[in-house]
C-alpha cells in the first residue's frame, strides 16, 4: 500500500514537472471538460479475522462475487488534472449456518464506496490517449443482513444494518478516445474500505485489488 502511494506521488510529480504551468491547451479529448465513465470487472479481497470469526460461529460461505462495477462523473479543472465523483461496488458475500434443523441462518454483506478522486495524466503526442494515476477518499458503507431463528419454528427474524467508515482508493489506468465523444478505459488498483465490522471490533476490508474495463464519454464545450 505504502509503495503504491509512493509510486502514485512520483507519477503525479513527474506529470506536473513535464507540464509548464502557463501552457493551456487541449490535453485530452479535445479538452472537453466533462466525462462519464461506466465500468465493470474483477476484484478480490483477502480473508480477514472478521470472516474467520464467522466461520468460528459455524457460518459457511454460500456465495461470494468477484464482480466489481464503477461509475464516475469527472470534471477537468486544469491541464492534466480532473476531479471525479466515483462510485464502486465491492465485496459481496453470503454465509449460511444450520440451526440444527437445516441451513436456516443466513448472513450477507455488500460493500460500496463513493468519494472524491483526483486524476492526473501523462502528456501524449496527440490528445486521444492517456495514461493516468488516480487517488481518492470518501465514505464506504457495508449493508449487512442477518436472518436467524430465535425459536424452533418456521419464523426467521431479519436484522438489517448499515455500517459507515472511510475508504482510500488508488488506481492506475489507460484510456483511449477513438471517436470525439466515446472511448474505452482500463484501470486497476487497490481500494481500502474497512467495513463491515463486528461487535468484537474486527473489520473486513471490503475493497481489495480490482481491475475495471469500461466505456467513457466526454462532452462539454472546450474552454
Amino acid at each position: 500500500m505504502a509503495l503504491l502511494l509512493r509510486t502514485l506521488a512520483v507519477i503525479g510529480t513527474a506529470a506536473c514537472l513535464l507540464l509548464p504551468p502557463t501552457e493551456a491547451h487541449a490535453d485530452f479529448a479535445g479538452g472537453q471538460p466533462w466525462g462519464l465513465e461506466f465500468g465493470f470487472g474483477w476484484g478480490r479481497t483477502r480473508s480477514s479475522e472478521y470472516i474467520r470469526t464467522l466461520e468460528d460461529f459455524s457460518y459457511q460461505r454460500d456465495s461470494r462475487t468477484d464482480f466489481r462495477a464503477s461509475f464516475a462523473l469527472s470534471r477537468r479543472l486544469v491541464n492534466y488534472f480532473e476531479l471525479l465523483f466515483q462510485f464502486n461496488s465491492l465485496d459481496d458475500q453470503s454465509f449460511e449456518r444450520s440451526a440444527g434443523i437445516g441451513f436456516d441462518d443466513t448472513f450477507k454483506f455488500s460493500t460500496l464506496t463513493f468519494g472524491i478522486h483526483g486524476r492526473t495524466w501523462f502528456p501524449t503526442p496527440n490528445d486521444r490517449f492517456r495514461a493516468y494515476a488516480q487517488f481518492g477518499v470518501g465514505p464506504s458503507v457495508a449493508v449487512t443482513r442477518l436472518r436467524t431463528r430465535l425459536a424452533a419454528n418456521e419464523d426467521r427474524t431479519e436484522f438489517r444494518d448499515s455500517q459507515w467508515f472511510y475508504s482510500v482508493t488508488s488506481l492506475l489506468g489507460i484510456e483511449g478516445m477513438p471517436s470525439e465523444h466515446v472511448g474505452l478505459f482500463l484501470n486497476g488498483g487497490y481500494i481500502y474500505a474497512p467495513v463491515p465490522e463486528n461487535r468484537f471490533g474486527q473489520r473486513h476490508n471490503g475493497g481489495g485489488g480490482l481491475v475495471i474495463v469500461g466505456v467513457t464519454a466526454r462532452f462539454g464545450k472546450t474552454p
Partner: protein
Amino acid sequence: MTRSLAPALVALSLLLTGAADCELDVVADPGFQFWCGEELCEWDRTEGNIARVPTWHDHDYAVELLGSPVELSQPFTTSVYGCILIELTADAEPEALVTLAIDQDVDGVAEWVAAVDQRGFQRMSWRLDVEVSGDGTDTHPASRMIIRKDGEGRAVLSQLRVSKRCDGRPEFNEL
C-alpha cells in the same frame, strides 16, 4: 434382480449427493439460540443461572453461564455407534472451570469429560468413538450431553456442534 440392485442404487445416490459423508447434528439447538423466555428451550438447566448474550452480532446470541455451579444438559437426539465430531465455540476463562461431558448410560458418572478453557470465541474440537443412545425410554434413558461450570470466571458458549461426521482419519478417544 430389481431387488438386488436397489441397495446399490441407494448407495450410488448417496455417493452422488454427498450424503455418504455423514453429517448430522445429534444435539438439539447447537447454537443456544432457541430461548423460551429466560430459559433455553432445548437444554435442561439443572443448576445455576444463565443469560442470553450477544456475540459477534447484536442479534446472534449465545448462553452465558452465570456464577457457580451451573449445569446444562440434554439427551442425544440420535443414537450413534461410531465416531462423532464435537466442535465448541466458547469464550471461557480457565478459572471458570467449564467442562463438557457425555454421560453414556445416565448413571450420573460421565464417561467422557473435556475441559473448556478457550478464550475469545475460538473453536475447540474433539473426535470420539462413542456408543450413545438417542432413543431413550423410561427404563433406558438416552445418553446425555452435559455442560458444567464450577468456577467464577466468565463463560459464554456459542456453538456446540455434535455431529456424526467422519472425514479424514480421526484420532479416536475411546469412551
